């Protein structure tokens, strides 16, 4: 058994005495620690998994696609200095015809060698086997797709490959580091039902797409220490004559980029949010400890008289704070581990890894502990030093009566309106302005955190409204395999249920300005925007100038361009013209990288008259099933998107995501609000129980004295609401800014509804804690309280 010194025994018993308060503070600490552990452990689990996966499956360093090149070119690519391995592949998107699914799904076919494993981007085979040589119908299917459809090795899927309906046999279920995160072209979030990857034998795929002896896709591994920039540059030059669409380094590959973006977010949230919680905890710890130490004044005097030094007493009282912090760490680490494994489950739905397990690294726990102890120490040190530094002879005397004054706001007019109870409330609040500020600060953070949850769920609705109703008013989007003559629109118009057709022309380009460049598609916009409209973040349509380019805000930022500047377009299609164009406008939209120009002007650039690369349709909902069947069979169609299906998937995925984060925010905001209000109430009660008991003796009712105590809390809570709304807005802006990316942006839309909901939540939490303290007020022992010596 460990022998405790008398002073340490005092510590434990004093803490036990204030257990409810200590627990309330510890819970705020625990919230911060839980977030720290949740985010950073998830970060480290994800990072470790990603790295070992990349290494084992030899994830590519450079990616390139092109129209068609002879296989012999692969040897030239392999000869580029620094290239250690090359895999030349055939990749094609096809329409899938799945039983029980009305809307067509898209399949991406990727060629693999039948006789060996790929040298770059090898597959992880979860179930089944590798394809056999000469079996043109055998495929390995991506795990996400297989799970979404309940398929297994031995099952079949039908695909329209180059105009012919082919039956593919799934022989294995696989994962690839290239498709940890995969989305259907043109969509915002993954839809495993409507998008699948299929790996099949090179020869079979090549013959179906006229790629015999050729390839249209390259993946390269580089020797360690090689700059991918130099390789990309040489590769681009090499592929140029073969319709190269621009090589990209790993950093810009969609799946990798998404995982990296997520990792960066986890890391920044993992520091930012816990810091907020620990700051609040430090504040309330300071308030609670200041009061507790005021009560300890006679004991401090006695201990000093006994010969305890300031240092010993300072350490003793600092340990109070550290002990509370340590309890918070213990609860927080457990809670964070639980939440983290829930978060990992969510990631397992988005990201496909062979195994993604949740682990809490010792370093994260050590970091959380260190951060907490520092915060607790900083919160406590002021209160402790103040208490311990009082000269012993002065500590011996009772604390001087508090110097009350009429507050500045307490004019004669206000005073008359307030009545005695109101005046007491007002004077108490204004007597401890710093303490009141600390409480207001804490509660307003609770408001802010709660608000974030509501703001984001409404931002998603806003995003849906802007993207799916204001910007894209079509019901169906059709993309062609190759650009076609505009006559195709009449063919589409004849299909069942089609009410209107708007042809669409998009052209792949490399856009550069100075030393910045990006690959993207320029969209041609007709003179009158009917179905597809260019809208800003608020959903307001924007007119397109007759000439020049309009860029999305993110693209303008990436290229460092303002209206009036010029950019150069290297068109990656047709006769591959190179044009320098003036940017005539920037639209503050929700999309990532996009560029628009007048459709006629785009045709001029391409030296074509009426070519379309896709079409937007308005259709009769009753005919959707028939239309879908016919679209699936059209060989010219590479992909079809039904808005209803896209939207349903969007809502499903976002709902799961949002419910989790709103739930977490609600929990943590309640803990903060409860912790802060409860502490403020307990401190007031402790300071004023004598005074309140005296009032009871004078004949005041319980209700009247409750009013004085709870009135103070109500004033603090109400005062923190506007500050909280402001904090919430700032925090939302910070988070929106941090998740803004080249893929999409979030509208920053703070509705009155979100503000009202968070106010209501916090007032609720404050009321509960106020009522808990009120119960103690009801149990006030009048005689005993009056006997307490101050």
């Amino acid at each position: 058994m460990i022998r405790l010194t008398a002073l340490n025994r005092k510590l434990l018993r004093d803490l036990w005495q204030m257990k409810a308060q200590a627990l309330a503070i510890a819970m705020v600490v625990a919230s911060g620690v839980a977030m720290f552990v949740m985010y950073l452990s998830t970060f480290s689990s994800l990072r470790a998994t990603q790295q070992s996966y990349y290494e084992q499956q030899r994830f590519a360093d450079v990616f390139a696609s092109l129209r068609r090149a002879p296989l012999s070119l692969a040897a030239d690519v392999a000869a580029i200095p620094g290239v250690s391995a090359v895999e030349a592949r055939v990749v094609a998107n096809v329409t899938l015809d799945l039983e029980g699914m009305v809307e067509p799904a898209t399949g991406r076919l990727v060629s693999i060698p039948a006789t060996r494993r790929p040298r770059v981007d090898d597959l992880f085979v979860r179930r089944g086997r590798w394809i056999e040589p000469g079996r043109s119908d055998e495929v390995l299917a991506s795990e996400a797709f297989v799970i979404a459809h309940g398929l297994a090795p031995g099952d079949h899927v039908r695909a329209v490959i180059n105009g012919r309906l082919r039956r593919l046999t799934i022989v294995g279920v696989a994962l690839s580091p290239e498709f940890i995160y995969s989305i259907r072209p043109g969509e915002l979030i993954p839809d495993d039902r409507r998008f699948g990857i299929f790996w099949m034998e090179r020869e079979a795929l090549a013959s179906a797409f006229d790629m015999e002896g050729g390839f249209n896709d390259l993946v390269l591994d580089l020797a360690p220490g090689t700059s991918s920039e130099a390789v990309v540059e040489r590769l681009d030059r090499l592929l140029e004559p073969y319709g190269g669409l621009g090589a990209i380094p790993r950093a810009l590959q969609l799946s990798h980029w998404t995982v990296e973006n997520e990792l960066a977010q986890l890391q920044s949230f993992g520091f930012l949010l816990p810091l907020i919680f620990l700051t609040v905890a430090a504040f309330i710890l300071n308030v609670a400890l200041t009061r507790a130490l005021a009560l300890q004044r006679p004991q401090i005097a006695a201990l000093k008289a006994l010969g305890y030094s300031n240092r010993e007493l300072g350490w003793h009282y600092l340990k109070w704070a550290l002990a509370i912090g340590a309890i918070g760490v213990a609860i927080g680490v457990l809670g964070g581990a639980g939440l983290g494994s829930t978060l990992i489950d969510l990631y397992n739905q988005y990201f496909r890894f062979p195994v993604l397990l949740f682990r809490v690294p010792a370093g994260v726990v050590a970091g959380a502990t260190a951060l907490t102890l520092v915060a607790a120490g900083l919160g406590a040190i002021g209160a402790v030093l103040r208490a311990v530094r009082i000269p012993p002879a002065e500590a011996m005397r009772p604390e001087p009566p508090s110097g009350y004054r009429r507050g500045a706001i307490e004019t004669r007019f206000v005073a008359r309106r307030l009545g005695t109870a109101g005046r007491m409330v007002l004077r108490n609040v204004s007597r401890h302005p710093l303490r009141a500020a600390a409480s207001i600060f804490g509660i307003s953070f609770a408001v802010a955190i709660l608000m974030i949850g509501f703001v984001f769920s409404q931002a998603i609705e806003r995003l849906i409204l802007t993207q799916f109703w204001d910007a894209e008013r079509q019901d169906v989007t059709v993309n062609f395999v190759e650009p076609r003559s505009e006559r195709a629109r009449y063919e589409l118009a004849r299909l069942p249920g089609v009410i209107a057709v708007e042809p669409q022309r998009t052209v792949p380009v490399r856009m550069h300005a100075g030393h910045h460049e990006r690959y993207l598609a320029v969209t041609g916009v007709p003179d009158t925007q009917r179905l597809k409209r260019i809208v800003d973040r608020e959903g307001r349509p924007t007119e397109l100038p007759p000439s020049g380019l309009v860029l999305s805000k993110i693209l303008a930022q990436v290229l460092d361009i303002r209206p009036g500047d010029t950019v150069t377009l290297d068109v990656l299609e047709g006769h591959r013209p190179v044009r320098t164009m003036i940017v005539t406008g920037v639209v503050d939209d929700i999309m990532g990288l996009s560029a628009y120009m007048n459709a006629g002007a785009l045709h001029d650039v391409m030296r074509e008259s009426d070519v379309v690369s896709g079409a937007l349709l308005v259709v009769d909902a009753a005919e959707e099933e028939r239309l879908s069947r016919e679209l699936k069979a059209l060989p010219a169609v590479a992909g079809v998107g039904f808005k209803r299906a896209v939207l349903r998937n969007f809502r499903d995925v976002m709902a799961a995501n949002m419910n989790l984060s709103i739930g977490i925010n609600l929990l943590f905001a309640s803990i903060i609000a409860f912790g802060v209000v409860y502490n403020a109430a307990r401190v007031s009660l402790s300071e004023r129980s004598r005074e309140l008991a005296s009032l009871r003796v004078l004949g005041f009712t319980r209700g009247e004295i409750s009013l004085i105590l709870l009135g103070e809390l109500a004033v603090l809570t109400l005062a923190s609401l506007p500050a909280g709304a402001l904090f919430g807005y700032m925090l939302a802006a910070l988070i929106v800014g941090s998740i803004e990316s080249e893929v999409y942006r979030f509208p920053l839309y703070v509705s009155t509804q979100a503000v009202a909901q968070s106010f209501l939540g916090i007032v609720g939490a404050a009321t509960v804690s106020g009522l808990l303290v009120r119960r103690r007020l009801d149990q006030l022992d009048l005689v005993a309280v009056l006997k307490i010596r101050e």
Partner: protein
Amino acid sequence: MRYSAIGRYPMPTLFDIRDLSKVYRMGEVEVHALRNVTLTLDEGTFVCLLGPSGSGKSTLLNIVGGLDVPTSGQVVYRTEDLTHADEAALTAYRRRHVGFVFQFYNLIPSLTALENVALVTEIVDAPMPPEEALRLVQLQERLHHFPAQMSGGEQQRVAIARAIAKRPAVLLCDEPTGALDISTGIVVLEALARVNAELGTTTVVITHNAAIASMAHRVIRLADGRVVAVEQRTERLSPRELVW
């Protein structure tokens, strides 16, 4: 032996106090708590400081005990000048040499009697065992009681046990019976007398109860911050004989 020796032979001086003054500033008024006090306290004596409230008794005791510093003048403990000692030196002085007993006991409410005494024995060299200190004040039956479970007299005796457990050179008691009724007060005074007699601890007791003066070797009367009379007594009463 020592008890009878007092008064017959000169005892070594424990405290040499010269020209001691203390001025407090209370808002805008200056309060002269002590004005040029000069006196000596001898080793082993039982001294009673008498005087009405505000006469400077507590201020004098606090300065002698190293809890406060004078505005001017000098206090020498044995050979150590307390006037110029810093905070650390005063803490060390209190820790090694001084035992305090207060009017309101100032026990730590969250610690038992034994633990309150251990609070001291844990931080000094060669203390007496806490149990022994409590036996000296006849509380051997109450070792594991918390302050709230004891009477006022018992609490004050715990405070005395806590003060003497370090074997201090001086025991300073500020109104030790001030909060007690007569019979409990007498039990507490008996404990003080026994400590003085058996351990030879110099004991200074502040009181405004003149009856207590009858058990002292020396009685110092203060009024308005000055020493107005010093009485050396040869006839001493035991606490039981005191007339309140």
